[in-house]
Structures are given as C-alpha cells and as structure tokens.
C-alpha cells in the first residue's frame, strides 16, 4: 500500500482544529480546520418569517456559501443545498416555527474534504448559537483506491487522482442522563447515516466498506468535537440582544 503524499497511512486523519465564538456580531461562529482545509461558519439565530416556498409550521434554514475567490457557481449552490438538508435533519425544527436561521459558510482554505469540513464547522457554529438540535453531526470523506482499500480524509490531490470517493455524515450519539432501556433491541444511533455524497463509480461492496470505515472514524471526530465544545462553554454570553 503506497504511502500518501503527506506521510499519513490509510486510516489517519489530518490534524483537526476547532475554535468557537470567534466573531462578535454573529450569534454563533466556529472555525474548523482539517489540515489545510479551513472553513469559517457563522449562524444568525432564529429570525422571524420564512421564505416563500418554506413550510411555516417549521423552522427553516438558509445556507449561504462563500467561496474563497471567484464567482458563485453551481458547485456552491450544490453545497448550499446539501448543507441545508443536513442541518434541517439534525435540528429540532418544531421548536421555533415560522423562523429562519441563517448559516453562512466562508471558505478560508481548500485542500480537499471541503464539504465535510463545512458541515463540521456549521454544526459547531449552531451549537455556539444555541440552536436546539437533536444530536450533532460529524462528517468525513472516504476514498476508494483501485485495489479496494479505503483511505480517509482526502486531500485535494488525492481527490483528483482517485476514481471514486464519498463524503459521509454520521450522527453523533447524544449524551443522555437517562439510560436507554431499549438499547439492546434497536441499533445504536451512530449506525444511521445522515448524508452521503459520492463521486465516481464504485462497486457496492466498496461503498459499504467506505461506510464502515467512515463510521469508525466518525467516533474519533465526534469525540474531538464534544471535547472542544465542552471546553469553551463556560464563557458564553447571550449576543442575540445586541
């Protein structure tokens, strides 16, 4: 198995970095970095009114994706749509009906796995803003090599060379005070999958391998996410009033 260009092996992730509450005006903000891919996400909390096509009985989300340079094109619109659907499924939309929550994503650096990085950043920003959520979401990119092995957390050059890869989003199991009595009967929540975007053609077995690997890695990322979110929760002040 050949070495990857930056010396990692197949299962190694790039160094993760997360900082919260970095902007003054936004209600919630987070900066997430995976190696050289850095994304800044900001959230403006529930504002009154929904857009025309949205269901007024639920809270709606609006995602604005800002690339680093250049015009906004179809790729950005696609990312916005995927991000919106993902966030809608993890947030409790019945708590604040007829409101719009805006999530703004700014790409600061792009070295592969841009969409997973953005999803992780948006999740952290939503937590920073205090938007009610069912559970957190963690996202990872998995690539399928020719001989069938899986590599995690792709860089840009790897994405360009690989025949097929996928971005996967898994739920993060919520910590709860009450012990789940029925946990033995049902599948644990991490076995679900929220979003999957695949590029290129891959055999079905390859896709399932990606899912397995991705799920295992998502445990590590969600551990990191929880730790970094819990650490900073002490100095939160309500900024919605300003």
């Amino acid at each position, binding site marked *: 198995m050949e*070495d990857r260009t930056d*010396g990692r*092996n197949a*299962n*190694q*992730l*790039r*160094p*993760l*970095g*997360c*900082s*919260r509450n970095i*902007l*003054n*005006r*936004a209600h919630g*903000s987070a*900066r997430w*970095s995976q190696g*050289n891919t*850095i994304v*800044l996400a*900001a959230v*403006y909390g529930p*504002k*009154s*009114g929904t857009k025309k096509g949205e269901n007024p009985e639920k809270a709606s989300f609006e995602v*604005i994706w*800002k690339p*680093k*340079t250049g015009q906004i094109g179809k790729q950005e619109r696609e990312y916005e749509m995927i991000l919106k659907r993902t966030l809608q499924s993890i947030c409790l939309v019945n708590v604040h009906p007829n409101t*719009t929550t*805006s999530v*703004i994503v*700014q790409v*600061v*650096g792009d070295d592969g796995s841009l969409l997973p990085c953005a999803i992780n950043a948006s999740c952290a920003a939503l937590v920073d803003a205090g938007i009610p959520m069912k559970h957190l979401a963690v996202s990872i990119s998995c690539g399928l090599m020719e001989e069938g092995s899986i590599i*995690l957390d792709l860089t840009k050059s790897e994405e360009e060379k690989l025949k097929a890869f996928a971005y996967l989003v898994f739920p993060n199991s919520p910590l709860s005070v009450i012990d789940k009595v029925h946990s033995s009967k049902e599948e644990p929540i991490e076995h679900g999958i929220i979003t999957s975007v695949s590029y290129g053609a891959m055999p079905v077995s390859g896709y399932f391998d990606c899912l397995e*690997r991705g799920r*295992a*890695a998502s445990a*590590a990322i969600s*551990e*990191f996410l929880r*730790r*970094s979110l819990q*650490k*900073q929760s002490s100095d939160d002040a309500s900024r919605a009033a*300003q």
Partner: protein
Amino acid sequence: MEQRWANTSRLTINEKQFIEEALRSEIRVDGRRLYDYRRLTIKFGREDGSSEVQLGETHVMAFVTGQLMQPYRDRPNEGTLAIFTEFSPMADPSFEPGRPGEAAIELGRVIDRGLRESRAVDMESLCVVAGKSVWAIRVDLHIIDNGGNLIDAANIAALSALSTFRRPECSVGGDDNQEIIVHDPEVRDPIPLTIHHFPIAVTFAFFHEGNTLVIDPHYKEEAVSGVRMTVTVNSNGDVCAIQKAGGEGILSGDVMRCLRIASLKASEMTTKIKAAVETYNAEVALKKVKRHPSLIAQKITVPDVEMKEASFQKTKELSADMENSPNQTSTSLTTTKDRDTNASIGRPLNWDPYSSSAPAIVSSSTLPELVGTSKDANEDQMMQTDEEYDPNLKKDQIGSATGVSSGIHKQNSPPKSLKDAVKPKHKRKKNAERGAR
C-alpha cells in the same frame, strides 16, 4: 426584504443619546480617546497573499491571486489590479447576499482609488509580453465581522496581502520566442510585487455639527454620526484619495486638520504593517532553509559522533515535553503565523502519534542530513522558541535534536489500526485550548 429590515439591530434612542453626550466630554463607547485607533492584529495565512486583519471587533480577510490575461488595449504594457469586495452576511445581520449594496461598492472604490490610481502597485513590472499577456492581480476582500470602520481595516488587509503575494516567475521562450513559460514555484522562487508606497485609509466620523471628530469609529458611533470622511494618505504625506459622500457640510479648516492627523496616523500604520510583513517573510525564509542540508553537513560531521548519545537524551526529553506540555510545542495546527511557536519549523507537523518511540529508531545515517536543518543564522531564532523546552540545551544540540525528530517522523511507518488514526488526547486538547483564545 422587509423581514431583513426588521431583523437589523437598531440602536435605541437611549444609546444614541448616550453616545452623543459622552462625546461632548470626549469619552467614547469603548473608552478610547478621540484620535486613538483600536488594537490592530495582522495575521497571514498559509499561502502567499492571504491576510487576516482584526481592527478591534472588525475582521477582514484578503486573498490575492494572479492570472495571465490580455491587457487593456489602451495600456498594452501594464498589468491590471482589480479589487472585489464581499460584504459577507456573517458580518452583520443587515448584510444581504447577492448584489453588493452601496456601502460595499463605496468601500471597493475607495480602496481601488487608493491602491490602483495612486500607482502604489507597480503595474509595468507585471507585463510579460507587451500587448499580449500581462499579469492580472485580483484582490478579494471578505468582510467577516462588522465592528465599524470597514474601509480602514479592508485597506490594511489589502496592503498586507499584496505585500506577501508572490507571483510565479515566467519567461518568454519556446520555438518562436513567443511562448510564455510559467515556472513552477518549486523550481524558481516566485517574485513579490513592487509596491512603491503604502496608501493608508483613515476614517473620521463627525458629531455635533462638525465640532467633534473621532478616528476609527465603532459601528455604534457610525450609526449615530451623520457625517463620515475617509482620507487615504501615505507616509510621505501624499494624499491619495479623499471620500466624503453626503452628510452635513464640514468646514474646510476641519478638513485640513483631518489631513494632518491622517498623515501622522498613516506613518504609524505603515510601520506596523511593514513590521508584520517582515516577521512573516522571515518565517517563510526560515522554512525554506531546510531544503539545503547538504551545504551544512560537512561542517558538523565531526561533533556528530559525540552528540549521538546526548541527542538521544534530548529527543527523549523533547518528545516527552511535546507530549506533556501542549502549550509549548511549535507544531501548530493553526494557520496563523504570528505565533512565536511557528518559528522553529525544522520538522513537519508533529501530529504523528509515533514520535514517542523516537529514540529507538534513530540511526546514524539520518543524523548527518538532518542535523543540517540548523544553520548558524537560524539557530538564534530556534534558540528563542526552543528555550521553552529546555533552557539548558546548547545551541547546536537544539539544532540536532529537532533535526533528528523530523527524521524519525519520516522513518516510522509500521501498519497501525484505526485507533492510531486519532491523535493522542492531550494533543487535541491543545487545539481546543488554542481555539479558546
């Protein structure tokens, strides 16, 4: 959209009156004096030509990119410079996505006049083949956080990014001497832009019918004041641009006063920007040095043998230190370059969990090539940052120790399970702590 209007944060009458009254006694909302700037922080990103500026609460990012394009017909031997401003909706709840509003266009124009029309950036050096191919430089300004005084902050961001931007070297060649070859940055060093002078924008806000004026208004002060004026001057005292769009009239004596204050502020600001750019350039140069270890190897082969034992100890200590004292390591996972710890970059990112087993694997063959990572010129710099690890280390031992640990990183590659995919917990904590700042 009316909903957006309803969602903007509006100042209450009490706040407005308070700000105005306080200014009568020369007291500002954040405790500054009338002619004080807020704290300025300039950070640079990983690539050339990207900067992040924080002026108090205002946060602006600038990215500079270059492309080869055809020149304008009336200026066939000059490059082009274009400024694009993005008022990101994350900066202010009232900023809407889509077409830029008046304020965004005004900001773009003021910076454009200051930079391009005052000929601060040399355009003729950007010409490759006259009439056919010139460099088109594009500056993208992203307003991330609106804390007031966006023009000044964006101007500083644009200047810093342009100062650190490097364009690839290109030469004319090929069969008919018309082909343009763009050299790879690894092969030939990219070239910086020629900047003749630094036009600094200074924004003034006027209150009480022009009787009180403040510099660097906060966004609440901007909302209260009716009149604003931006003056772009450079440290030579040249006025590059003046912008006063609408609002009440100001006496011409006041305008002259503003120009004088602005030229003072401009020289201060220019020194700050130049200092930040110098530090960044020094770090970049430091990183490049490690590419030529063969030059130094001959010098150190002799003491090499004696130091092997010592360096084993040192690497053990170093690795142990790195594992246990997360705040001190230089292996930064942030993109900002102003942190001191970034300076001792003889080694790649040390997020590898294998480094704790370092001493066992060092072989004599790795030492000579890697000991060379420390040149005499750099040892001073590395000395400063490595002091945190172990003040008792001698200069050359530090060099060899850090050189050795980078070799270790490359050597280890036994197959590991998924558990090792994760960095050890204390390393992650460091990120979170760093992020908490």
